[in-house]
């Protein structure tokens, strides 16, 4: 990439989440920035570029059975000849366990949950 830096006309960086799995692909754009040679932030593309954004609290990265949610930083480089180079760098947001591991929770004894939550009288009354 460093050999091509002279030819770069613009760089687009976006922070996105996208869904994968059996359903159609959905994309949500959290952050987007385009830098070209004239942008004050770019100075020269020979130097490393930085971006910063405050990530939202949802949707969290999820590895479900038929739905998966991924977060990534997508960088699109526009070369002067009209060529585009796209690269996705994935990262994890939050810590959600996959449903099959979660199913262990449903096998737990009710008394264990009572212990976790603190005792609550569950006897029925007619009022």
């Amino acid at each position, binding site marked *: 990439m460093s050999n091509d830096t002279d030819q770069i006309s613009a760089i687009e960086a976006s922070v996105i989440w996208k869904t994968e799995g059996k359903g159609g692909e959905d994309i949500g754009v959290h952050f987007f920035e385009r830098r070209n040679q004239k942008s004050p932030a770019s100075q020269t593309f020979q130097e490393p570029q930085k971006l910063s954004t405050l990530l*939202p609290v949802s949707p969290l990265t999820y590895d*479900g*059975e038929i739905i998966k949610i991924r977060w990534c930083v997508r960088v699109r480089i526009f070369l002067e000849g009209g060529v585009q180079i796209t690269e996705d760098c994935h990262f994890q947001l939050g*810590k959600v366990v996959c449903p099959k591991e979660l199913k262990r929770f*449903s096998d737990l004894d009710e008394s264990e949950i009572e212990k976790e939550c603190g005792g609550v009288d569950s006897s029925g009354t007619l009022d």
Partner: protein
Amino acid sequence: MLRRINLFLRGRLFSGSNRRWWAGVAEASFAGFIFFLGVILFVASLTVAVIYGSPNGFFVSGYQLILQIVLALSLVCLGTYWIARLIWDFGVSADRRGALATRASELELVQDFRKPRTKLPAIPAERLPPRPGRKLKFRLQPSPRNVWGLLTSAAFSIVLTSTFTILLIIVINALQNRTSQWETGIQQSIGPSRLSSLPDVPWIAAVLSLPILAAAFWSIYLFIRQLLKLTGIGPTGLEVSAYPFQVGECYRFGISQTGRVRLKLLDVSLVCHEIATYDEGTDIRTENREVFSKRLFRRRGIMLRRGQAFYSEFQMQIPAGAMHSFKSSNNRIQWKIIVVAQAKNWPRLNRNFTVLVHPADETYQGTGNHVANPSLKSGPSRNSTNPVGF
């Protein structure tokens, strides 16, 4: 007796917590009977008017016909109103109305649920915001019931009953004509050879009327069954200590059930579904996968008594590490609380409460009102090293 008439006029004979199982069947059947009686009378009036139409006009004129049609339409309207009230009363119990009236001042609390949540992208907005509860802070609203089955069976019943009525009138009319001409022939001593000139009996109509009658009875049975399914037993109330839910948190629940039946089973479960929509060529398919299910409450042999709603409290924890509610164009993650009630001689009852689950508090500095009972917040799951929480 006067008291019974008074109760009937106020529409309380069969409804509310005094309800017996046979009372529900009787009320639904009677409302259906009134409705179909109106339909039959209306169709019969029009058919008779056409058959005996005056030579100058299509319909016979006169006050008798107008009176019949007015009576028929009144019966149809009365039946429709009664059925609609049955369905509505089922959803809005006296219990809930009371709670709404006494705690109207707290309504502004729930208005917040309608506002868009910009802080939580891709988390759906609340379609049915909870109401103020009677014993706990919020009362969840059940998902709307599907009335399409009821409407379809009603439409089929109306068409079949009308068709049968028309065919029956045609056959009776032909038989009456034949009998009267025969009697006239006998009186005038006409021989049997002249009988062939008598009007024919419409055999096709007579034969067709029998399977149509059977189909009409079957569709009316299905209609009453659908109605009972929608209105049977009493309303189920589900109250919670805090809402919306947050992953990893514990909540206190209160379930109330009215009616006057012996419930064989009352079951409450928490489930999570992944719902994905995809194009298959030019068709759109939806796949629904249950990825988590946990029984929260089960009780057998509950005797619901007159004027006394069954009420019980239990607790629930949204498992730590679970996924929050999510919605995008083609994908959805939906949490539900499903209440199953089974009574003797009654179709199995399923009531769904779609609930919102937000991410855990470590990531979300929300409104701060999500835990009503601090004693329940002490679960160690959120600080546990195990991602599942145990």
